């Protein structure tokens, strides 16, 4: 049952690297990460914080861009170019096809993020000791920083994969432009989830109906902010693996929901 999925995934993975636009994004991301080095110099008194923020921010932002522009095209391209006909005529179910395409996207993004992550980690590893030496009183924070940053990067993977899932499913429902917009909207709104929670707080005085609506919206939306452990990085808090696994678990749960929706929609799709 799994083999066709992996075959499709592998074919997708190889094909994805031919998309120049995506490679361009990757290169641009690496340039930005590299240049954070210079930014830090330009700002007197700026701390390692800036490098970390720009680095992690770039990984997440450009990863998200790749996820959207790759994910929304994975299935439509196959349909528009009619390459899907010969594949679905083979013993590959629609579910296996969608999931295989998605997995191929997952692999592509994984490689992209690893490259960006390495670039960032190099810049960070070179700069960090300098700052650590300058501020010995922050030794505890620095000690935890390396592992915290690695954990943050791991969480970024899951955040971007979740966006990919949304993008792929959106592309089965809407036209390309609309699916791109929908994915971005869900992402931004998901990031702002705590805003809805604040709004639905009875103290804010919104109407009961609005409170319920907003509260439900908050519950249903994927909460992208759970992947953010920046505070731990800055405060030197040790982030236990149990928390990490729970966060990843939640992300995966949302991913399963989204892929399930995608399957239900695509299973009726005529090609």
């Amino acid at each position, binding site marked *: 049952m799994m083999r066709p999925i992996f075959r499709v995934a592998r074919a997708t993975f190889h094909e994805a690297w031919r998309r120049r636009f995506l490679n361009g994004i990757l290169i641009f991301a690496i340039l930005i990460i590299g240049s954070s080095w210079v930014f830090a110099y330009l*700002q007197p008194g700026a701390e390692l914080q800036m490098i970390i*923020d*720009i680095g992690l*921010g770039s990984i997440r932002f450009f990863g998200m861009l790749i996820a959207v522009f790759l994910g929304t095209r994975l299935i439509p391209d196959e349909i528009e170019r009619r390459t899907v006909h010969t594949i679905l005529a083979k013993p590959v179910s629609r579910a296996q096809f969608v999931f295989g395409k998605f997995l191929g996207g997952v692999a592509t993004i994984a490689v992209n993020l690893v490259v960006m992550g390495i670039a960032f980690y190099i810049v960070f590893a070179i700069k960090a000791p300098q700052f650590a030496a300058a*501020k010995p009183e922050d030794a505890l924070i620095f000690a935890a920083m390396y592992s915290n940053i690695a954990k943050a990067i791991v969480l970024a993977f899951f955040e971007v994969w979740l966006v990919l899932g949304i993008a792929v499913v959106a592309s089965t429902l809407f036209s390309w432009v609309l699916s791109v917009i929908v994915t971005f909207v869900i992402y931004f709104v998901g*990031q702002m989830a705590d805003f809805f929670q604040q709004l639905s707080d009875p103290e804010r005085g919104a109407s009961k109906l609005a409170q319920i609506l907003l509260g439900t919206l908050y*519950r249903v939306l994927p909460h992208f902010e759970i992947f953010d452990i920046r505070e731990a990085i800055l405060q030197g808090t040790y982030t236990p693996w149990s928390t990490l696994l729970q966060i990843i*678990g939640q992300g995966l749960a949302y991913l399963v929901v989204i892929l399930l929706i995608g399957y239900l929609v695509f299973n009726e799709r005529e090609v």
Partner: protein
Amino acid sequence: MKSYKIIGWLAVLALLVAVQPLDRSVEYDRLVLGLQQPTPWFQIAARGSAGDTELAVTGVTGVIVGAALGGFREVAATMLWMKTHEYWHKGEALQAKALWLMRLVTLLDPHWLEPWRVTAWHLAYNLYVETDDPALRAKYLQMGVDCLKEGVSWNPDRYDLYLELGWTYFDKVEDFEEANKWFKAAMLYPHPEYVDRLVGHAYERMPDIPRSLDAYDYCLKRDPQDHTAKGATLTIRERYLIPWYLAEQGKYDEALAAINEYLLAKPNSSLGLHVKGAIAEQAGKLRLAYDTWKLAGDISQLDFLAQSKAVQLAHELGIETEDTAQYLYMQKVGKDLKVSMPGRDTMAR
């Protein structure tokens, strides 16, 4: 609808419901670990619509808003921060704008210490010197201090802003008691070693000789090789201890004689004059105290404590004087400028 579809959508619903407990658990964990950073949307909005006419919203470009909303708050804060520097250096007209942006940065990223520090510095130091009006200066001091206090409330586990706050009190307001309060707070967390010595310096200048010796003692216990502490201890013992002890015992005339002896050799020593002024005040010789503090203030323009004390004594004596910024500030916060020497509250030590 086909049966598998019904099952499928029910499964979707079931999963969404099943995820909720996990969601709560994660939320709780994040809260406990301090990872939750709810965006202070309402605070930002409130500031944006505050009555203060200086607040202008330009400079916050669409990109920054997008970044702030899209989960890239820190990047937005970084970008905004760079912009504020740009505005600040463009001259006075844009400084208010720059200040508002700086406060926005602190809201967007409250755990980034740099903006708090720099904003407070701009207020207490730079804007302070741009005006000559003592009342306005006092206001800027207040704003700087308030800014740091807010920063501290966001970052209670870091020494940095406690130190900044303490230093502002130490250097600009010269309210050494308050300064030490904050220095000692900083010492509760991992901090650089010079903070410990600052406590001693502050007590020295207050002046409170016994406490300063205690502070240096603590430094030496922590690090027997601390040369500065050692040197300070020796100096204090040599110069100020005897006058102080004499004053403690109520032998004011002998105390004054002792300190005068030192001042003969070093007439411009501000610490010596501080001690003399404190003794005089304690002895009830207000005129002498006034003259001493006045002299100290005149010798060193930056000796704000001396100036404040001079103003206070001038008011008491009915001498015409101009209120300094620091004096006005202390008045506003209801600070008592009276010297406290043991003999009055030995037990409190």
